[in-house]
């Protein structure tokens, strides 16, 4: 999804494509007749008053004011879940529409006013959430549906009545993670700004917009006890085809990971920023969206080469993510060894001291030693992580290496700068091999470190320094999401990228993630789940040149989703 070039549709194209939406959403399940023949007046706080007449289960008239000339006839669809009903319709000949969730017992309503062409990417659905009620004789109700953090930390497998299967994780109050098992094969996870609204203790509204991707909005009611959902999806897919359908789905429970808000905080408001900062944006439709490609420079190869020629920053101890770094190891100082990888490459090393090494590629007639700055940490006895640049390499190559001297095994993450998409986006290959060193037990012939899925579904918080904590969600065997906490400990903004996980020893994992379609960083960390800390190296390039940055953080377990079985090969 990061790599799909979604068409920049014009408002005119969108209006043309929406013409069929005037017939109402399609649905694989029978639409409900719950409103057929009824009239409703829905009063929305700080919003319009909507007057509906439902002719049947597929046609309604709606007015957004008392002016009878504003009445519009349009198709709609409705589904029910217990006494809750969700219905959706567009406003004819406009890019606007409504999705309403109505509780027939309390008469309380949540309404999403939706529209296209409200952001620079016209296809991205915008929404304004209103709370209100169905007008009845007597006093208006004072209660309202409300935003909540009570869904935070939950995860579900959903299968819609049209066969679409997803894994959906809610690790934040602003964002959610979703894995498209059917549409995109379940390889990676993606993140989307999300509204979470509480109706009752076992009925919630979830609504995400796939911002920065297709812009599609998916809104559903869910019952976490019975694992049922009803919803509607509106937007344009990767072929620019309108998706406007309602769905009924059944789920499976994946689990609940930790929440980090103070006890008693149920998330009825979302406060962003410090004590002297403003709360969430107030403009109509505004929301917090992480748009990394709009805040990070996209550079050409030539621009990257020029920037790196001017500056390389290697292992700055003041790096923001190095605040909790472990002590630099002296294990390698004075040692000589060869790291021999299974792809045929081998590298000779001489470690002059704890921060200076010399290397040369074995074979190929290369005899000169190159000197590099390196940094290393001993995460577990005999397990050393170290990294360095490969000076003179064509793609500003860098190694992040974990060598297990007790077992004679090595795994290297070979980073190169530049992808077909961005000059300043890293790529990576994983190399498995052995350590050859005098005094070391002869290296094994067949045994190697292995890729592992032992981390999949797990969430861990990482505190890099006071004020800077993230949470990793190892969302699939091939991707990782990172969530930045708000001040009160709620999950906030989120992004995800391709990743892989290598098992070094029990409770010791070598992971990487690529900040793909983002700032292009390759993050590499060695996760020690006994000491609950990591060490690592970030490899990145930008207008300020190249950086190899120290990473060091303290961890906390944040729980685990039982999601691994969904990634097994199809049989």
């Amino acid at each position: 999804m990061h790599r799909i070039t979604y068409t920049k549709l014009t408002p005119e194209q969108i209006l043309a494509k929406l013409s069929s939406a005037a017939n109402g959403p399609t649905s694989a399940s029978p639409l409900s007749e719950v409103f057929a023949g009824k009239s409703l007046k829905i009063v929305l706080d700080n919003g319009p008053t909507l007057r509906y007449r439902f002719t049947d289960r597929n046609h309604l008239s709606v007015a957004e004011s008392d002016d009878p000339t504003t009445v519009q006839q349009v198709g709609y669809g409705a589904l029910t879940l217990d006494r809750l009903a969700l219905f959706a319709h567009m406003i004819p000949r406009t890019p606007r529409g409504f999705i309403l969730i109505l509780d027939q017992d309390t008469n309380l309503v949540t309404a999403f006013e939706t529209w296209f062409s409200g952001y620079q990417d016209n296809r991205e659905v915008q929404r304004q959430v209103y709370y209100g009620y169905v007008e009845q004789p007597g006093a208006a109700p004072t209660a309202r549906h409300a935003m909540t953090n009570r869904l935070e930390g939950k995860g579900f497998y959903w299968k819609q009545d049209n066969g679409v299967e997803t894994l959906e994780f809610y690790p934040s109050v602003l964002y959610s993670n979703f894995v498209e098992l059917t549409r995109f094969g379940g390889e990676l996870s993606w993140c989307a700004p999300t509204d979470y609204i509480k109706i009752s203790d076992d009925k919630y509204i979830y609504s995400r917009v796939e911002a920065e991707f297709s812009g599609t909005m998916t809104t559903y009611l869910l019952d976490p006890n019975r694992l049922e959902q009803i919803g509607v999806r509106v937007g344009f897919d990767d072929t620019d085809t309108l998706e406007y359908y309602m769905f009924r789905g059944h789920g499976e429970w994946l689990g609940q990971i930790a929440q980090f808000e103070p006890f008693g905080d149920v998330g009825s408001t979302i406060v962003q920023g410090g004590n002297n900062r403003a709360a969430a944006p107030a403009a109509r439709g505004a929301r917090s969206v992480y748009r990394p490609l709009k805040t990070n420079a996209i550079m050409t190869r030539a621009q990257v080469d020029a920037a790196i020629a001017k500056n390389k920053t290697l292992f700055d101890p003041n790096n923001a993510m190095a605040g909790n770094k472990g002590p630099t190891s002296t294990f390698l100082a004075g040692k000589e060894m060869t790291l021999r990888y299974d792809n045929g490459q081998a590298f000779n090393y001489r470690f002059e001291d704890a921060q200076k090494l010399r290397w040369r590629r074995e074979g190929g007639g290369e005899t000169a030693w190159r000197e590099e700055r390196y940094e290393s940490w001993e995460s577990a006895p005999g397990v050393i992580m170290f990294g360095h640049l490969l000076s003179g390499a064509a793609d500003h190559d860098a190694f992040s290496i974990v060598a297990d001297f007790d077992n004679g095994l090595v795994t290297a993450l070979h980073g190169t700068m530049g992808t077909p998409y961005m000059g300043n986006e890293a790529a990576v290959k994983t190399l498995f091999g052995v350590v050859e060193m005098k005094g070391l037990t002869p290296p094994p012939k067949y045994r190697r470190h292995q890729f592992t899925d032992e981390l999949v579904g797990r969430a861990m918080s990482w505190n890099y320094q006071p004020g800077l904590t993230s949470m990793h969600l190892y969302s699939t065997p091939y991707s990782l999401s990172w969530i930045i906490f708000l001040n009160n400990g709620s999950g906030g903004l989120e992004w995800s990228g391709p990743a892989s996980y290598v098992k070094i020893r029990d409770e010791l994992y070598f992971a990487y993630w690529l900040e793909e379609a983002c700032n292009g960083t390759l993050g590499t960390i060695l996760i020690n789940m006994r000491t609950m800390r990591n060490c690592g190296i970030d490899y990145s390039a930008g207008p300020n040149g190249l950086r190899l940055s120290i990473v060091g953080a303290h961890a906390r377990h944040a729980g685990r989703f039982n999601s691994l079985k969904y990634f097994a090969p199809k049989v």
Partner: protein
Amino acid sequence: MSRTGTSTRRSFIAVAGAALSAPVAAAAATFPAVVERTDPLKRRVEQLEDLNAIRALNQDYCRHVNAGAHEQLAALFDDPAEGTIATGISGIAADSNEEDAIEVATDRRTATARLWRTVYRQTAIGPSCTLVEMARLQGGGVVTRADATVVENVYVCRNGVWKFRRVSHRPA
């Protein structure tokens, strides 16, 4: 002699002016009262009114700093341009300290205070990286530290209302 701040004036009227007719009470609130220097009880009441008004002003100051309410904060100052939040300050603990000292001038037109407070200061985390960038987008990406601080205030009373003339901080 000037009178105390609005809220205190109301409480004064509630206590001392309850039996007055509304116009008289309004007049009493509008015109400076004549201090009966020979009436120690009355003078004591006025002193307490001044102190209460200044304490309330101090509380409002903390509240507005903590909320980042710049306009409301500026309104607490005789010269609103003086009512700014110093760069980096994110909050002030509003709890009073037994060492706090407030002195009101005998003419009751000015006052000074020396208050021991915990001031919270934020320093931006850097250099930037993805996490810092994302944290900044949601108002974070800062380190907050608590500093024991002496807050030294100068007050002025105009038209019966106490306001800040100046607020300054120094390490305790």
